[in-house]
């Protein structure tokens, strides 16, 4: 059993073009480490200095993981994790 992770277009160069990959771990951080071991570079796109990058949104099922404990958020088999780059900017 595993957790499905949906990958945005801009990161699919790290997953051989795959829209979704599978990984395992009991927390989001462990899951990301597991993914990074098979898709090197993916971890650094999501995490910086032990925290989720500010301009990447990571969702566990329908929730923003920032409200669930960030990389400490517990994940379970059958969960779906979705990664979307934040859409942001502005004149400054």
């Amino acid at each position: 059993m595993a957790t499905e992770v949906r990958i945005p277009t801009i990161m699919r160069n790290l997953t051989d073009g795959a829209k979704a990959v599978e990984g395992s771990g009991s927390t989001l951080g462990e899951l990301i480490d597991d993914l990074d071991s098979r898709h090197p570079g993916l971890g650094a796109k999501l995490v910086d200095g032990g925290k989720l990058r500010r301009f990447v949104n990571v969702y566990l099922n329908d929730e923003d993981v920032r409200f669930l404990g960030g990389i400490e958020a517990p994940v379970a088999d059958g969960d779906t994790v979705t990664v979307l780059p934040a859409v942001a900017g502005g004149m400054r």
Partner: protein
Amino acid sequence: MLRINREIRDRIVAHARRDHPDEACGIVAGPLGSDRPERFVEMANAERSPTFYRFDSLEQLKVWREMDDRDEEPVVIYHSHTATEAYPSRTDISYASEPNAHYVLVSTRDPEAGPDAIEFRSFRILDGEVAEEPVEVVDAY
């Protein structure tokens, strides 16, 4: 080049005007690979700021899932600048994350400008490089 329906162009401009002095933002979805902006989706600016915008994360998830279900992609990602020109800022360039999108910038700094005179410009942003492109406003695709 960005080809965009006049009605959708006018809705983007109207949204930018309505939210002024805050920055307005949204997308226009279209069928995957079509490069045709068809479905206008106004987004909330979670920052509610005159100098910054960010899509609300949960609204973004909902809208991105809808696009997935409909085999669409964000053909246009738009936002407004409220006091500066309609040109991508350093912030815009560093956060641009949809390589296939036309990044549309509208400036609402001139409150008198009508829909055809308002600054409405389109850019491709890829790996930190900005390329402006012509905008063709059409009555139908």
